[in-house]
């Protein structure tokens, strides 16, 4: 399975009654490739990511992750999803969250890497606090820790910079580069045109259809999405 692409999508479609949120989409992301997903609000970026993450049922089409069908446990073990709305338990501290998520994925729980992530994101003092008492930005940083604290070879990131301060944004960009450097494929949906300079490939969506797939400059992106 080592030669299998990180993500293979064929005819993936999502429709809500008569509204088509994503037209049939074919896509292949090789292992280790970094991809930026760009487009307006409602262009289908989040819908696509949530379907690949397994949170939305496709209306049609197939998704394979590292050669495994999306419904297989191996696909879930391989994919990490960082949503734009941090979802955290009210009754677990940040340390307990990280410990729990790591163990769910077969890890040893809270370790040095988790601790270093918290330090880099400025959460070192809040490790034993309940995220329910965190601000929006701190919750987003907690979600970043949970997405990275477990093993994966495909990272799906939806609007990662929302709610982050400038240092937090810079750390996240560094972390995404490191993850990419370690060989994981990344798929990042963003409104930030500058991000396309850091990735191998850009994919532009408009009204649920792919309008560009390749290497794009910031100017091209602004032209494509009308920014």
């Amino acid at each position, binding site marked *: 399975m080592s030669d299998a692409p990180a993500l293979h999508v064929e005819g993936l479609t999502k429709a809500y009654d008569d509204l088509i949120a994503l037209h049939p989409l074919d896509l292949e992301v090789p292992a280790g490739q970094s991809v930026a997903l760009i487009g307006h609000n409602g262009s289908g970026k989040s819908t696509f990511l949530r379907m690949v*993450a*397994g*949170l*939305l*049922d496709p209306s049609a089409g197939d998704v394979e992750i590292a050669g495994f069908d999306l419904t297989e*446990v*191996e696909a*879930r*073990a391989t*994919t990490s*999803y960082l*949503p734009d709305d941090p*979802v*955290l*338990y009210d*009754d*677990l501290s940040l340390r*307990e969250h990280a410990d*729990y*998520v790591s*163990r*769910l*994925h*077969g890890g040893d729980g809270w370790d040095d890497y988790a601790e270093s992530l918290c330090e880099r994101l400025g959460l070192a003092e809040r490790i034993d606090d*309940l995220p329910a008492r965190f601000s929006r930005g701190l919750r987003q940083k907690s979600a970043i820790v*949970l997405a990275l604290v*477990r093993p994966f070879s495909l990272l799906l990131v939806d609007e990662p910079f929302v709610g982050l301060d400038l240092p937090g944004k810079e750390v996240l960009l560094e972390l995404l580069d490191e993850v990419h450097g370690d060989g994981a494929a990344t798929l990042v949906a963003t409104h930030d045109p500058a991000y396309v300079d850091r990735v191998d490939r850009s994919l532009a969506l408009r009204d649920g259809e792919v309008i560009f797939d390749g290497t794009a400059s910031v100017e091209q992106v602004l032209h494509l999405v009308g920014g």
Partner: protein
Amino acid sequence: MTVEQSAAVLADLRRARRKQRVAAIHWVDALYQVYVTGIVSVVIIVLVSGWVGDGDVSAGALADVRDHGPAVMGLLVALAIFSGLRAGSRGGPLALEKPDVRHVLLSPVDRGVALRGPAWRQLRFLTAVGAAVGAVAGQLALRRLPGNPLEWLLVGAAFGVTVVGLGFGCALLASGLKLPGWAASLVGGLLLAWAAGDIVGSLPASPTSFVGALAIWPVHVDPLGAAGPVLAGVAVLVGMRFVDGTSLEAAERRTALVGQMRFAVTLQDLRTVLVLRRQLAQEKPRSRPWIPAIRRHPHWPVLHRGVRSVARWPISRIVRVVLMAVIAGLSLRGVWHGTTPLVILAGIAMWVAALDAAEPLGQEIDHPGRTDQFPIERGVVFVRHLPITLLVSIATGLLAAAVAAAPFGDGVGWGPALVTGVALGMLAACGAVVSVVQGAPDPVDTLSMVTPEIAGTRTVYRTAFPPALAVAGTLPLIAARASVRGIQDPPPVPAAVNVTMVLTGVAVLVGGWVRFRDDIHGFMAEAAENMSPTKAAERMAEERRGEEEREADVLAESRRIAGLDDDGEDQGAGAAKRPPSRQARAKKPTAPSTPGVRGGTSAKPIGRRRDQK
């Protein structure tokens, strides 16, 4: 990750979370809630038990129970299966926490292990509720039917558990197999129709009738009744087997809505509960209305808006209203034949239907910003919404009347049935309007500061009054029945009409309350504020200042008449002590009174409008 490893990690999580939750529990509050719940439950059971005191049924009626009881109880079973299949096709019956969906179900743990735990816990709770409700229903049946109390208690509880098991198992199965909504409705609907046909006698015995036979075991033991609990057990086990197929999309949507709905229930915000339930059921208005809009400019825009709203009712809402009318009609038949407590079922069914009829008014309440922009008082706008609510509700009442008087079995006479249908529809509309308009209790309310017992009584009153209004709509039928039994003089129809006239007065009062509710609230809020100790102290201080000013003026006048000069040492000291004159204070510049929201001081209600103080 193996099943054992998954189970171990999840067990650790549950342990950690339980520890945090137990630490956060306020034990006094929890015990107090148990105490209040216990008292309310006992009061309800005693009241309802006392009400079912109409004496033993006749031999003929007992034969009817033996012949038709299983089919009638089977209808209840079919309804549970229908509801279960529908809920399952929408991702139910599990209401998971959102973090569980995101972290647990997206991780490589066995989904069956992750989902069966919450499923068993939910089933355990529902089974306890089903057993309790069944046992109480058994005790109520004992008041009119032969048998011993223990038999009725056990059989009632067993039947309650069976109904819950079948509904829950079917829901799990539909959810696990991702049964489409239309298929769930089709299968459940066919079963429901078969059960209904069995009652009427036009179809052969429905399978649900065999399950229903268990419910009347104290009257007639049919061994086939034992199949019910077995079937329920099988349904639950099969459902548990397939639970890992639950759609995460449906689970996440359900998770968010159920959480909001629980919060709305704690706030007693019925309107929000209704809206969320519709979202949960994915019940959306039709984009293409059943009837086209009139082209010319309507004379009565509010009424026209209401008609447009009703014209967009989805088919599921129409089916629900018709079903409620049928339930109300069948209940009226039962009342007519002596089972008086069925007035509660008839009233509640009609009230539920009327809540749908009050949707245009509910939309107005949901969007106060828009309503406030109209150049008409809110109360007037609300009153103009009442005709459409009344019309739809009375039409539903007439449908219930038709079911009550339908020529099968021994129905109600057409005259009393139609009069009762009108009254029931009218009063159900009143109940629904009160429910919708009263909304959730104010977050800052002086009465909420009183003892919990008084506040609790008020809560019960707020909750029970609207359906009680609808139940009052069955009084014409009671009057007509009394007339038929020779208890009172006028013939049945005039007796029913007389009561309906009185009830019309109640409807007019409700209309008046809707029109002048804001004024009444403003008046009561002002009265309450005037009675507050802070306000009383401020008033006394003002009076004291006024008295001192008058004395100072009199003194100054006396000195002037006596020819004493105002200058001098004494005068200076006096001026320093004397408060400024009324005129001087009147000239003091003050901030202009501006309309809008005020708040922030402990003595004043937060968020109340200045013009409503």
